[in-house]
């Protein structure tokens, strides 16, 4: 008789959650939920409201004739370069794709492309070298310079600095045909 009672209670314990355990789990779940809400809420309220740092609109760079073949023009406010390669125009974001240093154009250094004898980008941070196509010739940069889309409207060159395009190499489709 007593044996049966014990058996039943042990079965009950195994199958059913005791009220105490249930309440413990609920408390833990509530605490976890609270912590998660707090964490997510904090991150959400601290999440930056500004997109892109000031620049980010469409910028008129000038007339097509302002950029002869092989030339490189720097737009400080727009944070980009315009390069005229054989296929057409490219607009490079000035940030090194390695660690974000501003890549200065060096007109006097030996060229790494066949468009001109001199001129290339030398990153001062980890000495990555880029050519007029934005391609990497030395250093640790993992991909070519990022580009902005260019539209040419009646001879006027317009660069959309709101869209940063990452690329693996140079393709004809990246240029704006002149």
């Amino acid at each position, binding site marked *: 008789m007593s044996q049966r009672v014990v058996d039943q209670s042990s079965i009950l314990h195994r199958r059913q959650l005791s009220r105490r355990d249930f309440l413990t789990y609920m408390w833990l779940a509530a605490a976890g939920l609270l912590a998660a809400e707090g964490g997510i809420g904090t991150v959400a309220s601290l999440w*930056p409201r500004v997109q892109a740092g000031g620049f980010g609109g469409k910028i008129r760079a000038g007339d097509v004739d302002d950029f002869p073949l092989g030339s490189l023009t720097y737009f400080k406010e727009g944070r980009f370069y315009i390069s005229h390669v054989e296929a057409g125009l490219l607009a490079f974001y000035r940030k090194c794709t390695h*660690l974000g240093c*501003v890549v200065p154009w060096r007109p006097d250094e030996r060229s790494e492309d066949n468009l001109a004898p001199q001129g290339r980008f030398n990153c001062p941070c980890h*000495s990555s070298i880029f050519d007029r196509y934005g391609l990497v010739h030395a250093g640790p940069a993992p991909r070519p310079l990022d580009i902005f889309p260019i539209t040419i409207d009646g001879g006027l060159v317009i660069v959309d600095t709101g869209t940063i395009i990452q690329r693996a190499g140079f393709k004809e489709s990246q240029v704006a045909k002149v």
Partner: protein
Amino acid sequence: MKVVDRITQNRTWKALFRIETVTQNRVWQSIFRQGYPSTDENRAKVILNSLFFHIHPVRVRKHTLKVTYTYGLGLISFFLFGVLVVTGILLMFMYVPSVDRAYDDIQILQTSVTFGMLLRNLHRWAAHGMVLMVFLHMLRVFYTGGYKTPREFNWIIGVFLFLITLFLSFTGYLLPWDQLSYWAITVGTNIAGYVPMLGEKIRFFLLGAKEVGEPALLRFYVLHVIFLPTILTLLIAVHFWRIRKDGGLSAPSPKATPDPPMALNIPPNNGDARTIFPRDPRKTYGLMELVRGTSPMVEKGPEDTVTSWPNLLIWEVLIGLGVIVALLIWSLVLNAPLREIANPDVTENPAKAPWYFLNLQELLLHMNPTLAGVLVPGALVLALIILPYLDRDRADVGIWFASKIGKKMVLWSSIYTTVALIGLVLFDEYVRVRSLVSQPEILPGWIIPVGLMFILIAGLYLVIYRWRPTLREIFIAYFTGFVVTYLILTIIGTVFRGLGMHLTLPWQLPPGAFTL
């Protein structure tokens, strides 16, 4: 003489100028509940009754007080943190974290504020000193086996204290808003951007924008003055508390103590322990207690201790004073650097991080940024954290370098690592891996560096294999490898990297390439 006597040899004078006048009154005795700690009882009470002293034990092992065991490195780090809090709070009165004002405020601080330059120097050099001392403290704890059972958890807290110290230094580095700050933080946060999957989001959240600017300055300021110091303070509290709970500083087990059993037979004046545990030749011995350990503790006080007052406290005072004196002299001699105001259009050449991050920056020259900036440091931190759970043999706790073989490990691992690293850096500079294999990117970026790392790790084992090292000795060899790598890369990055981060001799560095 007579005049002096007349003044001093009377009741009024004697009543005024004696210690009892100060201590024998209700006010004093309401604050200090024990007499002057000249007896063991009062020396115990002075520790127990004071909030500020009670983190100390009443009695401390003689071994703990040996300068050559700890070199006071943890204490020095703690005092430097104290200096940083005090000078930091003073600096907060004179600094506004906004792009318009930050740089001007620093210039005004240096040129117009009384002792302003000194204040800034103290803060800057104390921060650098703290990074160095925390690192050296970690070396001390490792090489003496202080991370072993039961101190595993405190070692982990120590690892986090080291990381937070680095983050504190890093966030503070942006605040002067000069070219040095701007580009060091640009490079540093770009590394965060290479965390797989979440990287760009983390960087965006950290900076509050796509590039370093006003939001980044404010965020770093808040992290630097409140968030990180609070966490650091809490962790320091736990760290100290755990020292007590884990049985004080690590020390060799009694078996390894060279003292003969008659160790307490020492001259009466030095016999602090003697008063409590007198050596009595007429004494008969019986089995009183079974304790852990392998040698009889007859006629020794438990663990050979002395009272903390004054034996430990005098060291703390001396080390504290020493830190302040050294820091003051250093700060009077050397000014903290300040370049031109931050200019997002022009990157400094070379753009260098503070010296303690140049090891990381050196790695970035040679491999994929995710590997150099995230995975390698991450793996190292992980290795440090799991280390105490792998190495469980407690036989050599408290012995520098564990054993004779351990010392050989340190020597040969240092030589091996030095030769290999310098060779690799020279190779990548003058032959260049990327000029041999540049495509596909995964080869020079990932496969070759990872392969070389594994070859170097395996090679070190081949070097040390002939001494048949124990697990602990193997760990000593690899830890030494890590330390030497850290040091060599830091040195190369600091004084051998010039324009475009190319190798340069230290005396040919361009102006501005060497900055602390």
